[in-house]
């Protein structure tokens, strides 16, 4: 996208403006227009980053860096329609890089969850189950985790996810299938019973 072309004015209604208009305005360092981009996409980017870092303290910083990178050079986004995917990719890649630099992920330092079957209280069981699921997701390979975060949790279409991950739709489907199979296979019989019970309530 050529952000230098033309002298478009700031969109009158920022809420109604398309991503292309906002990017053009942001290229002229219009903070209000950039603020609208932040309103639209910061939370989903943060959530995906959080899933990629496993909740590490760096999460907010990584998500912010993706937006700062955009602010410094909005021309990096070649297609305005791909803005959300671009932000996701930049943040996810940064999260993966930092994760690799850290000495073994927090998964190993996460305290083991007590056997949920032994806990009487339903809320505690749900909490424990949620923690266990988080742990299992965090243990998935990075690309599988990213595909799952984008498609299952953030509602990206397969086309959008493929664009965000710079891969093919077939590769996204393969990553998703492997992620889901890995999660299913990692469940013990007790956990299956527990999950079915929890979801039935």
């Amino acid at each position, binding site marked *: 996208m050529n952000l230098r072309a033309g002298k478009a004015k700031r969109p009158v209604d920022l809420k109604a403006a398309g991503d292309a208009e906002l990017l053009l305005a942001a290229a002229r360092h219009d903070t209000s227009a950039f603020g609208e981009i932040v309103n639209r996409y910061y939370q989903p980017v943060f959530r995906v980053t959080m899933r990629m870092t496993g909740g590490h303290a760096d999460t907010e910083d990584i998500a912010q860096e993706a937006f700062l990178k955009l602010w410094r050079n909005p021309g990096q986004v070649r297609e305005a329609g791909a803005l959300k995917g671009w932000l996701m990719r930049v943040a996810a890649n940064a999260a993966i890089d930092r994760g690799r630099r850290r000495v073994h992920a927090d998964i190993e330092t996460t305290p083991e969850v007590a056997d949920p079957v032994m806990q009487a209280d339903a809320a505690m069981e749900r909490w424990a189950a949620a923690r266990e699921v988080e742990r299992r997701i965090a243990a998935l390979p990075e690309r599988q985790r990213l595909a799952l975060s984008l498609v299952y949790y953030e509602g990206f279409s397969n086309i959008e996810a493929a664009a965000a991950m710079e891969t093919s739709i077939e590769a*996204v489907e393969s990553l998703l299938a492997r992620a889901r199979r890995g999660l299913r296979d990692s469940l013990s019989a007790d956990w299956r019973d527990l*999950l079915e019970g929890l979801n039935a309530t």
Partner: protein
Amino acid sequence: MPHEENMGLRMKQRLQAVLASYGADPARWPAAERDELLPHLGEAGDALDDARLVDRLLDLAPAPACIAGMEKRLMARISRTTAPARFQLGWSAALPLAASLALGIYLGAVGALDELLPSLVTEDIAAMDDDDGSSGVTEATDYSGDQLS
């Protein structure tokens, strides 16, 4: 294998693949294939049960909680780092350049430049130029002549 049977088998295989990748909720399936696959859902069998189980599992994981004021902190960081930098860079670069230009114009206009240059040095340079009266052109000619003879 008859064409319809072949189509049915392919559709079943594709449905299983879609369930394995996207889960049991048709809303998550690829939009282009949804209508075509939905009528076959009843034939999915274990693949559908498996997909439902994994969906339940994934739904248990809570959405990461967004921290209050995140967007404000980001916008504050943006205005802190970029806007002042542009302003400072503009003036800090322009002022010395403008001052140098003004001084140069002034000195040229009043003819003060000659007085400011150290005269001894300029005279020495001029004397060196006149020392032997050679221009270099004649030397080049002599050299050529030597080589030819």
